């Protein structure tokens, strides 16, 4: 019973996925960068051969560096998820700082602290940019004007005197309540289900 559910938890397997993904990004990006650099630095007759040699020499090294960084970052992120039992952008920021500090620990404590601060600031900028982009994209979507759906269930008898107590304000409260739970269809948002009041 627990096996299919634990397999949906991404955290231990995501480390390996992130190592492969980071290596792919580093190898492809490093290939493109060093190909252009080799083209620029080679003499006139040997540009393509020089570029090919530069890619062959440097692309695996860049891929390896990216894989190390991505793997460590993912491991620290999973550690934060396990420790805090929640997922929010703070996990990524702390994981970035920990990765930077850990990779520079061999150079001394001062350099390690500096790299940790730099990693944290970099991840904070990335997360902040992501949140701002998400807010901008969500603000761009026009709100669909949908007629209020009638309540599928009639109100309970216990609710009637409360609703009857408000003469004009009762209608306003009803509209406010229906506004709170109306089923507006959005891409990334589900309206709450109509509660069926069965206790246990």
């Amino acid at each position, binding site marked *: 019973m627990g096996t299919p559910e634990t397999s949906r938890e*991404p955290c231990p397997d995501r480390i390996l996925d992130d190592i492969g993904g980071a290596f792919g990004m580093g190898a492809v990006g490093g290939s493109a960068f060093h190909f252009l650099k080799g083209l620029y630095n080679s003499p006139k007759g040997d540009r393509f051969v020089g570029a090919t040699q530069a890619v062959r020499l440097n692309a695996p090294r860049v891929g390896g560096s990216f894989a190390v960084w991505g793997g460590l970052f993912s491991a620290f992120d999973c550690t934060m998820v396990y420790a805090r*039992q929640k997922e929010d952008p703070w996990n990524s920021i702390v994981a970035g700082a920990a990765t930077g500090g850990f990779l520079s620990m061999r150079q001394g404590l001062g350099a390690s602290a500096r790299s940790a601060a730099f990693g944290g600031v970099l991840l904070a900028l990335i997360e902040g940019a992501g949140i701002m982009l998400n807010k901008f994209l969500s603000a761009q979507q026009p709100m669909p004007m949908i007629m209020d759906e009638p309540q599928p269930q009639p109100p309970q008898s216990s609710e009637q005197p409360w609703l009857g107590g408000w003469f004009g304000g009762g209608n306003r409260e009803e509209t406010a309540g229906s506004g709170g739970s109306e089923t507006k269809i959005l891409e990334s948002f589900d309206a709450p289900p109509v509660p069926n009041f069965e206790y246990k």
Partner: protein
Amino acid sequence: MFRRILSHHRTLSACAHNATTRSLATRRHAPNVPPPPSFLIPRSRPLSSKTSQSNEAAESSNKAKKDVANVEDPFSAPTYNIPEKPVTFVEGASYSVVILAGLGIAAAAGYAVFKELIFQPKEYKIYNKALKRIQDDGQVRVRIGFPITGYGQESRNRAARQRIPHRVWTDEEGVEHVEVNFYIRGPHGHGKVFAEMFKGTDNEWKFTYLIVEIRAPSTAQIILESYIPSYSPTK
């Protein structure tokens, strides 16, 4: 290098010359003069040959010094003659403008980051409050186990899991409402949470509703919070 090797060959030839002079001296003086004067005469002649050797070495060292001095001149002369071009005032001003623009961009990025993260956005604030309320509740704990993890969306992507679907709206009385959806997962099951909070008159967030829809071990729906406004018949 070549000059040093040539000087070495010269010293070898000088030694050979010295040997030949010694042999000639012994042949001439042996039949005529007794032994003591012959001892004195060859001593003086090697001294003269040694002095000639030292003179030749001095001359060679002088020539080497002159050559070194001559070699250095062509490289140092152009360095002293490079004219310095002054930077105009307009160019310097444009550089300072570029620097100020860069600092402005950095300040804007820093402000955006601080606004979104240090002053936490509303959806994460409500997400934290709702998740803490759920983690401390016994009804949910009985069903899905104790370490309850909350995440935004059911995906393996880190950004998608960290982003909380939310909607912010204001009712006709000017009160701000924030609705959030997120998923919870425990050792024995998982579920989905629907929560709404509004900012009351005392400027604190209060729950309008908090509904936990448990799906995994058995389907259940738990209402943890449900707001009922204060009732006054005079209004």
